[in-house]
């Protein structure tokens, strides 16, 4: 079995996600090669062959061109699997490559069972095992699902890759995330409001509890998107990553993108009306209750 891993590069830096890709390929015992549109100045910690496309020429984000270059590597290496991270770069490029190669794509793989990928369904409430047709396929790996391979201090054997491909979009740079406001990463207690709070007035129920516990309040994305809470309090992949001593999730279902931001919390309490909510997987205590009744009752007693 041979696998081609696609590493990522952004704003002049190699991203760390490739270590989980390596963790995956070592778990399935595959012969491994790698592709990176990046720079020889920041190479991955990997001892095999690295196909390197110079980002100075081919861009950091340029799906049509990166797709073209990848098809050349696939033609040369004939891998059974091409693996991406399920990241903004990966979920965008993977289907383009799958389409070009006319092979299946399996998204957000969380496990491997009897040589077949397993993926989540309905916000991780269920899972399914998927069988691709044919012998080659593309997949994306859910962040955190496979442990990163430990540092090995290796240097890859670099093969420069070039090709003449045209772009159909113009990428003109990055806009930094909004800064300032609250730094949740320093808070010892965080009480977060999810969509389950129902209406903006209920943010107060949650912030009161945070006050009583001497911490800060945070929020899940829908609460921020609805502008009930400012963005600098959002917890998750596109917000802040936090690790307080106590995290209280009020009316939060526990989507993977939220969990990614808080699962390193020391103790997690979830308050949810749905006993089966995926947040139960990471919660030390799941209080099955309506937060509008329970949280004020809790505040009263503190």
């Amino acid at each position, binding site marked *: 079995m041979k696998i081609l891993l696609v590493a990522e590069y952004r704003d002049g830096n190699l991203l760390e996600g490739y270590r989980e890709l390596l963790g995956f390929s070592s778990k399935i015992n595959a012969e491994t090669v790698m592709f990176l549109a990046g720079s020889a100045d920041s190479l991955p910690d990997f001892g095999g062959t690295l196909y390197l496309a110079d980002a100075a020429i081919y861009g950091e984000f340029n799906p049509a061109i990166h797709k073209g270059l990848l098809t050349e590597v696939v033609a040369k290496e004939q891998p059974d699997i091409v693996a991406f991270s399920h*990241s903004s770069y990966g979920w965008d490029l993977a*289907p383009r490559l799958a389409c070009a190669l006319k092979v*299946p794509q*399996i998204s957000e793989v969380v496990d491997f069972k009897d040589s077949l990928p397993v993926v989540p369904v309905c916000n991780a409430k*269920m*899972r399914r*095992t998927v069988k691709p047709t044919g012998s080659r396929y593309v997949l994306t790996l859910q962040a955190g699902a496979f442990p990163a391979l430990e540092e090995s201090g290796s240097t890859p054997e670099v093969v420069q890759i070039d090709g003449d491909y045209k772009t159909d979009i113009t990428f003109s740079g990055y806009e930094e995330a909004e800064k300032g406001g609250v730094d949740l990463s320093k808070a010892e207690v965080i009480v977060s409001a999810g969509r389950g709070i129902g209406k903006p007035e209920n943010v107060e129920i949650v912030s009161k509890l945070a006050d009583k516990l001497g911490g800060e309040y945070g929020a899940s994305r829908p609460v921020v998107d609805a502008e009930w809470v400012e963005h600098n309090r959002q917890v998750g992949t596109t917000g802040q990553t936090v690790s307080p001593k106590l995290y209280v999730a009020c009316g939060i279902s526990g989507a993977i993108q939220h969990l990614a931001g808080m699962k390193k919390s020391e103790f997690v309490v979830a308050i949810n009306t*749905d006993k089966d909510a995926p947040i*139960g997987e990471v919660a030390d205590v799941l209080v099955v209750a309506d937060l509008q009744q329970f949280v004020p009752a809790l505040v009263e007693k503190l």
Partner: protein
Amino acid sequence: MKILVCIKQVPDMESKFTIDGTWYNTSDLAWRMNEYDEYSVEQAVQVKEQVGDSDLTVLCIGPDRVKETMKKALAMGCDRGVHIVDDKAAQRDPWEIASMIAKFAGDKEFDLIFCGMQSQDRASAQVGIYVAEMLCIPSVSTIVDFQYDDANVTVKRELEGGVKALISTGTPALFTCQLGLNTPRYPTLPNIMKAKKKELLSLQADDFLEVTAAQETTEMFFPEKKGGGLVLEGDPAELADRLIQIIKEKTTVMG
């Protein structure tokens, strides 16, 4: 200008799911518009309002019940609906769904196509990009900001950590919409009434399906509960006492 928006009907994620073979049981569920698609419908309607002279089609592949969800899109401001009737839609893989959409869109010269970034149940995040690749038009995924100006589109694409990539392209093009792109409107009662009179064309899946699935589900199951966390149920006041006790014992935050 011609605009297409593709929507999917999905179950309410808080439903009590049961498994039926290799998919979830679809009886006794509450159905709604895929959350990501609400943003694409809103964006499509906003562009339509901006340019004036335009025609906005909403497309949905699924069984008869998806018409209810399509009516919401019509009430939000889409001009016409195209329902590709397919009782097996839920089982179809992204490749089949995308091929059907591409087959429909192939000869219609849409200037803009909007899809959701992913569907909430299947979450493959593939269909939109596949459609664009099949139609050989540019596509940008995961957009959180969209500006249209005389056949030029400028978007912000969301990356990890809240960083955004600034991207522009011409038309025709396809965009997949991320949460928070805009504020989807609630259909007003007059618009709900008006929507009832809008065209909702039913087409047969067989006329659009020309490919076979690229993957199949071999097994569907509930993940093993590994957390082992404590589950507390009962009277809120008593639960509060118990929780305070636990927090005092297990953490140092109340000492």
